[in-house]
């Protein structure tokens, strides 16, 4: 290992944001031509470390060396000039510019005073040749493309400048399956060219597929660097989490009750969803698996009255009336948690109390009036129950960490006391402790002895679905399969359908998986084959 | 200028605006009177021209710390009540434009007879076009009492000439000279006929509209080809009169107005009897009388 001199050395990197210590003295070494994985829980500091590397943040303390030379990038352009490129976690394209302009942004080739459009086109085509994606033509506006395509533009941007070190921060989180496979091939090729790659991911299977070494970050510190080939997944997980995760998915005995929701042939305006049929009963959790872009979110939105519906029927067996508007759905005791906290889920500059009680303000006063004191009392109870870390119910919700924001968004459904909870990626972007709290809460509402509720949960993380759900259905290109009890499924079955390699889930009474029947070993799942 | 010797009388002069040369002359006249009489004079106008509401506020504020007010009301009615309120305690002299229904409470009204000014202009224009043909009026701005009186005076008097028709009087020039110039250019275009105009005479009712019209005529190379009578004074107008581009302009005597305004106010404060109406005069200047020493002196008071 020690033979080639390292391409990058980071020593004692420290970074604080006000009172938050994002990184406390991190050391990292990257060799030429290696793919080095960086893993760790949310908020561990992975992105922050990489932003320091790419010049987007300046470290408070610490030294960096690149190819043996001191390296202190003042800004991203500086870093690029030295050969360090980064693909950011948050999407980062300028929607009004064309694909080619996005790719060369910040380093446009020039001919005299003007941009050399020929050179720009050539560079863009060269970068895009790696993907061969049908939608991505150099002269279309980036804003008109899908999220997946936008992510590829970003990758193209970094390729276009010929870097010696490339950082990928969770690149697959918004890529379609086909593009993921192409990306992996691309990374193999880059590695062969001697380019070093730092690859951040929450998916250990990706790490295993790509990386030779991995470094685990926890709470802003490096807790270990290992060779991927010789390391057991259990060890990585325990390094990441720092504790036993046996009880991550609590599950007490559940009894399925009466039918509470019946969806028949629901079809959205753009055929997403496409003729979806699903039954939901009290006391059960139904999971919807599928790839990014398969239309799961659109299904929930159509169901909840947020998107227009072209056809199909939704029958609700709960009291209250109302048509398919969000207001009507709340009245029917159906609540929804959005996958996008910042853009849709929360009103960030309002208080926690306002956010939690927004759908049911009429309960906190009569004749249009409102008692903030009552709002706060009610909210304080949830803060207590869900363990939301905050200064109090009056604090603006934007000041909370992502996990605590998510708990508050979840509390909105509990406060309204809905019978049906529609949860879209309820644990996206939150840490493991918060996840556990939310799983616990889900388990509690469906096993309530007096009034068991029902839950539909969307997740891209299969272990989560297998851990929480009673039945799982898979969505692929807007179409939803039957919901099959988890005991009769393997993640493999699910992925086959999701990627379109199989038409449907196996019949009841088919092969029974050992892994799936014991949900508590779900942390093994990332290593199951894809 | 905040401090004043104890016992010194304090007079506030509130004009309609502060930007026109016209108001500078009023200020100069007021200052002259103040110096002669040994009183302290404050000259302060509304921040936005034509902002009645703000002028009302000004009157109130100034009444708090002055012994008398000399006011050029932006509006005949808007300023009436506040004036009445103030006039209960302190003498108020109205200058420049009239205040409605104010005989009972104001000390005096010191102004040009604007209607008469308009008539003078009409007669001058009629004479210059030989009492027959078409004329156009470019008005100043809606709601400005003094200019509306001039326009009315003009239209009344021009009716007395049976062979003169008014081709257009519905356009308002707008508040600034630049706007006036655009409106005037468009108006001229509308009235164009062959190489000249379908009208023989043009009247404008104040400084900015006259200025804008003159610039527009010059821009279209029509200056001098049409008879043009304006209102108020500007170095450009004198130049135009000399070149034959204008046939006349009606001058008020703002210096005298300011002077008489302050003088009347002080007289009232001292308990002397004052005239209820003081006419400060409207004078037609023409290429012919520019050399007249009296006219020259009048013009000099109104140029920077």
């Amino acid at each position, binding site marked *: 290992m020690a033979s080639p001199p390292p391409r990058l050395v980071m020593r004692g990197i420290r970074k604080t944001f006000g009172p938050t210590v994002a990184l406390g003295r991190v050391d990292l070494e990257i060799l030429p031509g290696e793919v080095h994985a960086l893993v760790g829980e949310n908020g561990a500091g992975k992105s922050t470390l990489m932003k320091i590397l790419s010049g987007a943040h300046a470290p408070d303390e610490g030294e960096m060396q690149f190819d043996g030379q001191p390296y202190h990038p003042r800004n991203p352009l500086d870093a690029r000039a030295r050969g360090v490129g980064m693909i950011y976690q948050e999407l980062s394209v300028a929607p009004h510019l064309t694909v080619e302009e996005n790719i060369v942004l910040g380093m446009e080739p020039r001919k005299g005073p003007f941009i050399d459009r020929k050179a720009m086109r050539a560079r863009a085509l060269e970068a895009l040749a790696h993907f061969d994606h049908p939608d991505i033509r150099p002269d279309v506006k980036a804003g008109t493309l899908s999220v997946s395509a936008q992510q590829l533009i970003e990758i193209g941007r970094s390729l276009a400048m010929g870097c010696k070190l490339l950082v990928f921060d969770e690149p697959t989180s918004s890529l379609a399956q086909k593009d993921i496979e192409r990306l992996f091939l691309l990374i193999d090729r880059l590695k062969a060219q001697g380019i070093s790659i730092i690859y951040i991911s929450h998916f250990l299977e990706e790490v295993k597929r790509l990386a030779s070494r991995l470094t685990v970050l926890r709470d802003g510190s490096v807790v270990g660097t290992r060779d991927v080939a010789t390391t057991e997944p259990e060890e990585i997980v325990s390094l990441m989490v720092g504790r036993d995760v046996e009880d991550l998915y609590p599950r007490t005995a559940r009894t399925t009750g009466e039918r509470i929701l019946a969806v028949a042939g629901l079809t959205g305006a753009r055929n997403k969803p496409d003729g979806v049929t699903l039954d939901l009963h009290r006391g059960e959790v139904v999971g919807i698996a599928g790839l990014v872009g398969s239309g799961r979110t659109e299904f929930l939105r159509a169901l*909840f009255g*947020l998107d227009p519906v072209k056809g199909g029927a939704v029958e609700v067996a709960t009291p209250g009336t109302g048509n398919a508007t*969000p*207001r009507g759905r*709340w*009245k029917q005791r159906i609540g929804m948690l*959005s996958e996008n906290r910042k*853009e*849709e*889920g929360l*009103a*960030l*500059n*309002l208080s926690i109390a*306002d*956010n939690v009680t*927004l*759908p049911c*303000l*009429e309960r906190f*006063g009569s004749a*249009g*009036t*409102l*008692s903030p004191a009552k709002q706060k009392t009610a909210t304080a109870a949830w803060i207590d129950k869900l363990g939301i870390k905050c200064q109090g119910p*009056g604090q603006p919700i934007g000041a909370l960490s992502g996990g605590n924001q998510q708990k508050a968004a979840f509390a*909105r459904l509990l406060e309204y006391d809905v019978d049906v909870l529609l949860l879209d990626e309820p644990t996206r972007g939150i840490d493991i402790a918060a996840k556990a709290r939310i799983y616990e809460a889900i388990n509690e509402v469906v096993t309530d002895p007096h009034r068991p509720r029902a839950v539909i949960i969307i997740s891209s993380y299969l272990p989560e679905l297998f851990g929480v759900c009673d039945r799982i259905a898979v969505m692929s290109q807007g179409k939803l399969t039957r919901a099959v009890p988890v005991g009769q499924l393997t993640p493999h079955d699910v992925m086959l359908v999701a990627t379109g390699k199989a038409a449907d889930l196996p019949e009841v009474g088919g092969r029974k998986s050992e892994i799936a029947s014991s949900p508590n070993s779900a942390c093994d799942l990332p290593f199951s084959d894809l | *200028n*905040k401090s004043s010797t104890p016992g010194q009388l304090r007079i506030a002069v509130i004009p309609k605006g*502060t930007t026109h040369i016209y108001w500078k002359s009023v200020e100069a006249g007021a200052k002259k009177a103040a110096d002669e009489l040994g009183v302290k004079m*404050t000259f*302060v*106008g509304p*921040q936005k021209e*034509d*902002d*009645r*509401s*703000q002028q*009302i*506020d*000004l009157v*109130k*504020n100034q009444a*708090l710390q002055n012994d008398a007010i000399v006011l050029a009301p932006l*509006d*005949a*009615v*808007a*300023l*009436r*009540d*506040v004036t009445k*309120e103030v006039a209960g305690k302190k003498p108020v002299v109205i200058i420049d434009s009239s205040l*409605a*229904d104010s005989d009972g409470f104001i000390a005096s009204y010191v102004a040009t007879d604007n209607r008469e000014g308009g008539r003078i202009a009409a007669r001058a224009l009629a004479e210059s076009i030989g009492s027959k043909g078409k004329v156009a009026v470019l008005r100043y*701005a*809606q*709601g400005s009492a003094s200019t509306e009186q001039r326009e009315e005076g003009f239209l009344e008097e021009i009716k007395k000439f049976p062979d003169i028709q008014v081709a257009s009087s519905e356009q*308002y020039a707008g508040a600034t000279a630049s706007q006036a110039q655009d409106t005037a250019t468009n108006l001229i275009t509308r009235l164009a006929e062959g190489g000249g105009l379908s009208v023989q005479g043009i009247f404008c009712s104040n400084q900015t509209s006259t200025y804008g019209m003159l610039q527009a005529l010059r821009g279209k190379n029509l200056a001098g080809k049409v008879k043009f009578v304006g209102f108020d004074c500007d170095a450009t107008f004198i130049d135009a009169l000399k070149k034959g581009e204008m046939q006349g302009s009606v001058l008020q005597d703002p210096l005298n107005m300011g002077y008489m305004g302050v003088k009347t106010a002080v007289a009232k404060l001292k308990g002397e009897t004052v005239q209820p109406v003081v006419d400060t005069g409207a004078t037609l200047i023409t290429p012919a009388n520019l050399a007249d020493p009296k006219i020259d002196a009048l013009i000099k008071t109104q140029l920077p």
Partner: protein
Amino acid sequence: MRLKSILTLLGPFIALLVVYGVFGSQNPAMFTEDVVLNILTQTVIVGIAAIGMTLIIISGGIDLSVGSMIALCGTVGATMVTKDVSPVLVFMGTIAFGGFCGLINGGLSTGLKLMPFIVTLGTMQAFRGAAKVATDGTPVNLPFDVTAYKPWLGGAGIPWGVWLMLALVVLFTLVLRYTRFGRHVFAVGSNENTATLCGVHVAKTKLFVYMIGGALAGLSAVMNMAKSSQGDPTTATGMELDIIAAVVIGGASLSGGEGTVLGALIGALLMTTIRTGCVLNGIPTPWTEVITGVIIVVAVIIDRLRHRTA
């Protein structure tokens, strides 16, 4: 009120006190009852309209047409007075007409999803023009024997308009804080998507906000009529910017979700104080403009710094 809200108001309030103090130290007349009363009275028209604007800005909108609306409503109100309509009906009629104008703004921006900035830029000209067309450009004067409106913004003692303004500030502070509608206004301005998700009638809320804005502009117009005894189609030109500045100085954010009615009042008072102070200190009129401009920017800088440290 929570500590946070109080802190938000502290910035503009301190600015107000400092400005008042500085002018007062130059001319002690500033501290007399008369001047204080003048400042209050002269704030009424902008103040009442600023309350409505606060709601509009909190909901994420803006209304550039408010000055023209005041002019148009004023001519409508004055015309009613000349037709011998009773004061109560004049008040109600003018307010209703203002609400209707607001509805046009709200309807165009909500229904057709147009940017309120440009919609109200258009209606600003249209309302102004309409006022001039309707009155032929001349102010509609109240008959001289009508005295019912005088006490609202003139006469001896504290004009009723001042009490009205204060009452409205209290009322709308309560509405924003203690009613469902109030919280919906904040929710819509803070994040429209969240509001929709939570079952808030976003379009209805916005329409209502613009209607209230218009209605308060109508009330402001009645006060203006009371002040000048006429409905003048050219009045309040450019006042929209004064009103918006008052609201923003008072801590509202033009991106929505933030703002207080009391803050807007303080902002409006600040601007009147500057003007009054400049006049009392004999500062020439153009300097007043420079000073006003600089104070607006400084007030916003202070606000910004406060936010950064908080």
